[in-house]
């Protein structure tokens, strides 16, 4: 079990780290998809099958497409490459900041006694999930639904209204 976990973790982290350092945006995006897949595998490993499915559907299916579209739409030519890291100073401060946060987080994790029993994998059925969602959490589901709708509308409006904005700014 632990071995599987470590494998999944290393796989995911490696993909993410490389994705963040690649110069080619398309490659970065593709590697991130791999990393998200790793997270989905982690969900499978942890026994949250439905979540793994959702992660695959949303991240691998939807968000990756949106990202790729965004990348393609915002590039003047396919050949154009962004510098991976924008200036030395920015990279160094980013690394230091990240390192500091990492140190704090690792320290916190390692020095916290976590006395939870590592029990067997217990599954949580979709039926249970559905009952939870339609029962006590129904208000939250509604809110999320509203948020998604608004986000959809917002996305459309933002992408579509930009031409008019251009005109206004020009005047």
């Amino acid at each position, binding site marked *: 079990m632990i071995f599987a976990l470590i494998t999944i973790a290393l796989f995911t982290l490696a993909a993410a780290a490389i994705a963040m350092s690649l110069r080619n945006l398309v490659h970065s995006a593709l590697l991130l998809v791999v990393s998200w897949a790793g997270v989905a595998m982690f969900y499978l490993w942890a026994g949250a099958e439905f979540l793994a499915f959702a992660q695959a559907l949303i991240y691998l299916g939807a968000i990756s497409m949106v990202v790729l579209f965004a990348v393609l739409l915002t590039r003047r030519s396919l050949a154009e490459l962004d510098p991976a890291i924008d200036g030395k100073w920015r990279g160094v401060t980013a690394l230091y900041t990240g390192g*500091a*946060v990492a140190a704090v987080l690792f320290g916190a994790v390692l020095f916290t006694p976590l006395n939870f029993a590592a029990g067997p994998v217990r599954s949580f059925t979709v039926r249970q999930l559905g009952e939870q969602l339609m029962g006590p959490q129904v208000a939250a589901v509604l809110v999320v639904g509203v948020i998604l709708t608004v986000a959809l509308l917002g996305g459309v409006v933002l992408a579509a209204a930009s031409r008019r904005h251009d005109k206004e700014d020009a005047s």
Partner: protein
Amino acid sequence: MIISAQHLWLIPALPLLAAGIGALTPRGGRSLSAGAAIAAMVAAFILSCLALRTALIDPAAHQTFNFAWFDLGHGAVRLGFLLDPLTAFMCVMVTFVGALIFIFSTGYMKDDANFKQFFCFLSLFAAAMLGLLVANSLLLLFICWELVGLASYLLIGFWFHKPSAAAAAKKAFITTRIGDLGFLFGILWLYDARGTLLFFDGGHGVLEAASLSAMAGTTLSCGLALSTAIGLLIFCGAVGKSGQFPLHVWLPDAMEGPTPVSALIHAATMVAAGVFLIARVYPLMSADQVLASVPVHALTVVAFIGGITALMGACIAVAQNDIKRVLAFSTVSQLGYMMLALGVGSWVAAIFHLLTHAFFKALLFLGAGSVIHAAHHEQDMRSLGGLRGPMKTTFATFAIGMMALAGVPFLFSGFWSKEAILHAALEWDVSILPLIMGLAAVVLTAFYMTRLVAEVFFGKARSHAAEHAHESPATMTIPLVILAACAIALGFLGTPAFPWLQAKLLGEAEVHGHSLLVGAGLMGLSIVLVALGLGAGWAIYGRKLRQSATAKDPLETASPPLFAALAARLGFDELYAATVGRANLAFGALSAGFDRYVLGGTISFLTRFAHFTGVVSLENDESGLNAGFNATSEKLRGAGQSYSKAQTGDAHGYLRVLALAFVVLVLLVVLGGGR
């Protein structure tokens, strides 16, 4: 028809109705408005007479009708009506004089554009005044008290397009309000101490024995009895309303109003309300008389204030040139007499003088109004003169009023009422000063009234307007004649030989006549003094009549500084303007300044402080530092702006700060030893 206490509300309600009609009729409805007002007054007069008949059946009884106004806590705020001889006599006087003045006004105000409004205000005044008289509750009395103040305000400022009238109206309202605040405070104290404001309530009222002895028995930390303190506070209201020293300054200015207003409100009725008030709460005012060892008795203060006012008013009246102002200061002086009478312990004498004064002073004012009307609103008596010929009725009636006011013996009512006051002052054993002040005022009164009559009616006309004067119409002269008759007849209600009025007011069923000889010495002295005043006046003004409007006054020639001081009304207005008025405005400016600079400054300081921290929190924005200290920050908006300097728009920066802050926070928690 029997009018008892529970019907008393009808008396003020009728004029109120007339006021409502007057307010709601369209501009054209002149005759409707005036007709309703006069009809209401006449009806109220009839009702008042009926009420008087009821009251005189048993003069000692206080008929009351009390009711709850609104619920308050476990109890209710109660108001009530009271019927006793005092109320009834006052009602009869107010309605009678009021009706006559209303009739006079139809002539006097005939050409005014706001004729309808005038009668509406007059009716409102009458309603409030009558409400004040019939009240059995200090609260109801106060309500009506304020309303007569409002009516007075409206009527003084009736010719509101004249800046002087507008200013005089405001001055009257504000000055009386100063007194009213004291009055209100007294009411609050009384209410708090006794839990009720009803005068008579079957043994629980504030003017009844239990309450009075409780209040006289309570001694405050300053040594005064509770009843003294409350009484003096209530007296403050009377000082303001009745134009007593030191709040008399508004009354002469109130003559800016139309003359019928001066006659009704500022001579006969409203200004006498203060006297009525003290007479009404007389048991309270005199409750401390049983105590020997108090620093001051409430009535002593009243007596001295009254004496000072009587003398001062008479002095100032000597040097005034405006016909209405002379009469106004004479009113101040006469009100001082009444207060003096109250103070020295004879409230019946005060009310007697109040009643007689109401008639002859209304007569004098209406006479002056008739003169002013005839002389096309010329009020300066230096420019009048010689009106004896063309205005015979006015002259005759005015002379009767003048003699009543001066106290010409035996035939005129003023003589008897003044005599009663002087007699009471003589018997007062606290001090002789009020008597001396009263006697001095007698001489002065006779003197200035002689001067007035000589200047206005004798000699030759000294202006174009006076030359063309002619007698006023019948609507104006008939009230004059009636009032003149009353000014004579009323005296016989209360001669020493047959003091019917006094007996009824005191609630004595029997009339115990005294002989004329009682106090004959004092009477003789005052007759001599009156003669002295009349003689001096005639000697100075009558024998050598004024030749032109610009000639100097004989007194002015004799002693310019004294005359100037008196003509300037002893400088009270200037004094108040320099002290109270200025302090008021200064405090106003101070408050506004405090608001703007101290509070605003504090906020501006906080803003700068916030600004400073905002700037410090931003490592690399040096321009912010300079800008920050130079910018005059506009309160919180400035703070917002300086904080917004931290808003670099650099998303990376935000994220970096966020992450580092997280690290710092965790370290703080850890190094700080957890919670």
